[in-house]
């Protein structure tokens, strides 16, 4: 029980202008980070040179730098960096949406088994050596696996055309458990290829191309617009379906749209980068503490923060560590303890939220 003195100093809600400044600030920070990290690596490139290379490619001109520098920045690093940012944004955005729809602050893009479905699809492709789409076959099968899993989970959870948050989470856990057994079986059967499957499952962004950056980036932008359009409905959905419906939200329609979009966005991320945990759980929590729960502000803030976090983590594995650590392992190793710290602080009543 809390006791509030009647004169409790009201902490006024952030004004509209302040919110916009925050989002613009995060955006500027992300752009600066992209330029700086693009210069880091075996070949160091100064930020102004990176900017010149990018500008030259965008305007179709010739960059006044060495050919090697141009290639390293434009062909190798930038697609990887933009893929990392897009994947991070996708996971964080999907996390915000899943937590809102499932009324569960512990939900993340993987709660409904989307990651297990993607992992199963990828493991299948690697085991059977499928290559009808060249190097993109694994990503395609991962995406299809994620989508098929989502369909199965919704079908399993639905009753009279409705899905409750609890039944969705239960169905997700059941389907994910079955798929995990399937993945183990594929690993067991795949003999020497098992290391390839394990490596994929640990997540990686090395060697990502412009095509992959473009596909994930496109999925994130479309998904973000869909989420933002429904941001206020998502605010109300957090009150539970009964209250949301009575306040004028078309609960069934909005929930289905958000569920499918968030799953597709996370599937696009997993297909490109493998399984990267904790970003979708940690970033929404952290940003909710910083900017509050209003999805109209939380969505852009979480998307940008997720992009920055994964970009930093990827730079760490690529540049700072002596051996390239799988990024999924890194995010869990850093994110896990950090989440413990945040959770504990919250338990002890420090800070807001």
């Amino acid at each position: 029980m809390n006791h509030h003195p009647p004169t409790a100093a009201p902490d006024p809600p952030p004004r509209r202008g302040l919110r916009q400044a925050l989002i613009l600030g995060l955006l500027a920070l992300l752009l600066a980070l992209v330029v700086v990290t693009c210069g880091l690596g075996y070949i160091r490139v100064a930020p102004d040179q990176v900017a010149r290379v990018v500008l030259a490619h965008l305007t179709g001109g010739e960059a006044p730098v060495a050919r090697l520098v141009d290639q390293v920045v434009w062909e190798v690093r930038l697609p990887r960096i933009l893929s990392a940012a897009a994947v991070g944004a996708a996971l964080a955005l999907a996390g915000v949406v899943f937590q809102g729809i499932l009324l569960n602050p512990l939900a993340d893009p993987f709660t409904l088994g989307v990651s297990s479905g993607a992992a199963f699809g990828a493991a299948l492709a690697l085991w059977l050596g499928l290559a009808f789409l060249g190097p993109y076959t694994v990503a395609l099968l991962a995406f299809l696996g994620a989508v098929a899993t989502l369909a199965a989970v919704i079908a399993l959870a639905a009753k009279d055309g409705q899905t409750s948050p609890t039944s969705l989470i239960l169905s997700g856990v059941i389907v994910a458990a079955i798929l995990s057994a399937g993945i183990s079986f594929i690993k067991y059967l795949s003999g020497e290829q098992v290391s390839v499957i394990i490596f994929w499952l640990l997540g990686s962004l090395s060697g990502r191309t412009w095509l992959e950056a473009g596909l994930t980036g496109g999925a994130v932008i479309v998904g973000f617009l869909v989420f933002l359009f429904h941001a206020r409905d998502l605010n109300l959905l957090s009150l539970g379906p009964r209250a949301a419906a009575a306040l004028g939200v078309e609960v069934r329609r909005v929930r289905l749209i958000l569920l499918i979009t968030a799953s597709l966005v996370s599937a696009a991320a997993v297909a490109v980068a493998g399984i990267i945990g904790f970003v979708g759980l940690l970033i929404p929590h952290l940003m909710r503490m910083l900017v509050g729960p209003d999805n109209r502000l939380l969505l852009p803030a979480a998307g940008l923060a997720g992009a920055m976090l994964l970009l930093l983590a990827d730079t760490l594995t690529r540049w700072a560590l002596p051996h390239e650590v799988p990024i999924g392992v890194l995010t869990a190793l850093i994110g896990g303890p950090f989440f413990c710290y945040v959770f504990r602080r919250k338990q002890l009543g420090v800070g807001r939220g």
Partner: protein
Amino acid sequence: MAEPVFAIRGLSFAYGAQPVLRGLDLTIIPGRFHGLVGPNGCGKTTLLDLMTGLLRPAAGSVSFQGRPLAAWRAGELARSLSLTPQEPGLGFPYTVRETVLMGRHAFIPRFSAPSPRDEELVEAALTRLDLVALAHHPVTELSGGEKQRVILARALAQDAPVMLLDEPTNNLDVRHALAALGELERLVREEGRTVVAVLHDLNLAAAFCDHLILMDQGRIAAFGPTPEALCAANLEAVFGVRAAVRWDEFAQGRVVVFQKNGGAA
């Protein structure tokens, strides 16, 4: 007789094989304060869910203001009908004010800021439910009774002519319970609104409701003006307890008293 706000005919509903409502008929006339009373599990909340369209009837029909409920869009319905649910559902740290402003959802176009009228209704609701000092607190840090006042304030801000409330006095201390029901009574008397409130405290029902709907096993057991519907015979039939209904000089109204071992009778 005024056109009914709700016309419910032959309404049946079941959860799986468990029938909850069995051919229920009910007509709600505008401008009245209805108390909906009945034993646990008799179908009160299910009836409210069918009246807001959250659930679809297995048989029978519900029409609201002369139109079948299925023909109403959610946003349009929310401007005419509000529901205060039994569970506050306040799991995310929105402030009290933000939560009360959600009552205006159906009136604020997507991407628009609230109008001065919206702000005015929110301030009035916060004042009426004694929440001004808590306006900027996160709802997740409130006590049960404070949360209940927040969702009542949200319904006041929604400002709908017809209000459904599921146990609106849940968790409220006696002062806040009297104030909340008094506010609803004022809206009915002065503004001609229609209220249907599930109440478990029969003395509060006796004090504020002009009509009582007694439910039992998925049917309407009795429905009429409170002085007639609230009698010892009805209470014994519906709740299976021995009760007496008396005029009380101090309360200036009718009060219900019970025998401790009334269930054994």
